[in-house]
């Protein structure tokens, strides 16, 4: 029986909860997420930067496919350099098909020891899959084979889920997801199998939302992240706070935005008690902190 979200997690106000604690010296954790996708040219493109004359999308959509492809050919390598220079080890969430179509990119992440997190097989909403269970298993298996470790985490393509997706994820060995943006703290979701933890991701410090949907100037990548950080940092005096930042190479890796991305990470990591953790590390902390 598919579960209503509140059957998986009842409403709770953040004001009255038991306090979780970070290790000594840590005040706020930033969670950098780098998303790698495969856009199948046989289908409509996941996002568009330019619409055709008269507006009606056509297939094949060569211009928007190229726009994304630039991210994998050029943008990713810029982001890698920025993250490497700042000694950030992000969560890399990837369509499993990226291991087949862009093995050089996936291998570069493995070589740096970055966490691989499963992001479906390709960039199609979960609703459109005939057999979610099989696609989830296949995605986990491909990434496990490529990277040598079974992914612990999952982001649905477009963060999509149906009412039973979580049950299949749990069966496939997923321990945490980023799809539920409903809290500042990790929360534990009930499934028909083992519980799954939802880590506090967000859709607002997120390059697709800011740049591709809300059409903000590139500078907003930095200013919104700093506003978000300052507010959370103040609150982190009382409760541990985690701040996710989501990057896609075709958006964050382009020349006119990468500078704003770089200075954002630089400034955040320059503050006292701020560290960058990947999802796996945040999960381990949460499981231990919850138990005490």
């Amino acid at each position, binding site marked *: 029986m598919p579960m*209503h979200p509140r059957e998986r997690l009842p409403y709770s106000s953040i004001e009255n909860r038991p306090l979780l604690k970070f290790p000594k010296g840590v005040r706020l954790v930033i969670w950098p997420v780098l998303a790698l996708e495969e856009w199948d040219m046989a289908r409509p493109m996941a996002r568009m930067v330019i619409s055709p004359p008269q507006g009606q999308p056509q297939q094949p959509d060569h211009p928007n496919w190229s726009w994304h492809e630039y991210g994998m050919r050029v943008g990713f390598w810029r982001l890698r350099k920025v993250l490497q220079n700042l000694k950030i080890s992000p969560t890399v969430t990837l369509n499993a098909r990226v291991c087949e179509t862009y093995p050089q990119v996936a291998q570069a992440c493995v070589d740096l020891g970055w966490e691989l997190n499963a992001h479906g097989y390709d960039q199609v909403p979960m609703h459109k899959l005939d057999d979610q269970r099989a696609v989830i298993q296949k995605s986990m298996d491909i990434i496990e084979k490529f990277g040598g470790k079974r992914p612990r985490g999952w982001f649905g393509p477009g963060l999509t889920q149906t*009412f039973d997706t979580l049950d299949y994820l749990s069966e496939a060995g997923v321990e945490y997801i980023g799809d*539920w943006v409903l809290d500042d703290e990790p929360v534990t979701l009930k499934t028909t199998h083992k519980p799954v933890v939802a880590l506090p991701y967000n859709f607002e410090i997120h390059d697709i939302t800011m740049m591709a949907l809300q059409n*903000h100037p590139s500078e907003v990548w930095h200013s919104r992240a700093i506003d978000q950080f300052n507010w959370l940092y103040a609150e982190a005096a009382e409760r541990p706070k985690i701040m996710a930042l989501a990057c896609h190479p075709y958006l964050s890796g382009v020349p006119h935005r990468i500078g704003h991305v770089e200075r954002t990470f630089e400034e955040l990591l320059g503050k006292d008690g701020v560290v960058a953790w990947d999802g796996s590390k945040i999960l381990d902390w949460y499981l231990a902190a919850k138990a005490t």
Partner: protein
Amino acid sequence: MNFPKPPVGMLPGDRIAYSPIVNRKPLKLPNRARMVVWTITNVEEWDPTQTMPRTVLTPPAGGSPMPDIPNWCWHEYGNRVGFWRLLQVYDDFKIPGVMNINGAAVGAFPELVQACVERNWEFVGHGFTQRNMQKVENERDDIRKSAQVLEKLTGKRPRGWLGPGLTETWETPDILAEEGYDYVADWVLDDQPVWLKTRGKPIVNIPYTQECNDVAMMLIQHHKAKEFYDRAMDQFEQVHKDAKDSARVMAISVHPYIMGAPHRAKYFRKIFEKIAKKKDVLFWNGSQILDWYLKTGPKAPH
């Protein structure tokens, strides 16, 4: 102009005649105040089995697949986390709270609602569910049920009404007056309260806003967060100036899932940092505005 009359209810022009604000008898506030600011917090419950009222992230290649868990979660964040940031602002600056909540949502977020009851917030009727009034099956029943839920919660009947998305049928003001509401805020046509005729007793409309409203500014117009502050201040300064000889009302309307996000909360707070200390500005709820208008404003039309 003569427009065809609706079969029930009234055309707007039959409820309220055109009147330029400059030709009215001046309204005076106590203590030589020039204007009133009222701030409305909107709390909704989104049904995850339905299409979401708003979205922040669309699925790859568009469309609106159901269920839409990501956007449901985005809204839920407002009630779990974001609301408490707004509440802190109201507490710190002693701003009287006005809660605009769907009847059905009252039971969904007990701690949130309790915090407002404890602070003696004014609860305004906002439909039983977040559905347009034109689509509500039985409008009177919906309006009545909304009042009953709030009366049970607070011990007081709600005096004010703000329709979901400000929607009305031709008949809404008539039914509101018959069901015992004293004011409505759906009509954003003036800077001062006005009387609306109904088929029974007239009802007061209090100035509300679609412009200093985070749904419009942040989700529809896609402005930067700072624009919320900038626009509120521009609005405030102009209304303050306009109110030299006759009092005016300014509304600010927010939703916890929008202005309660960490990167926006600061701009909401800054508004009150700037205006809360002004000597000639009153911070009232809807009921206080109504009582003042009933006492000092023009008599109800026949």
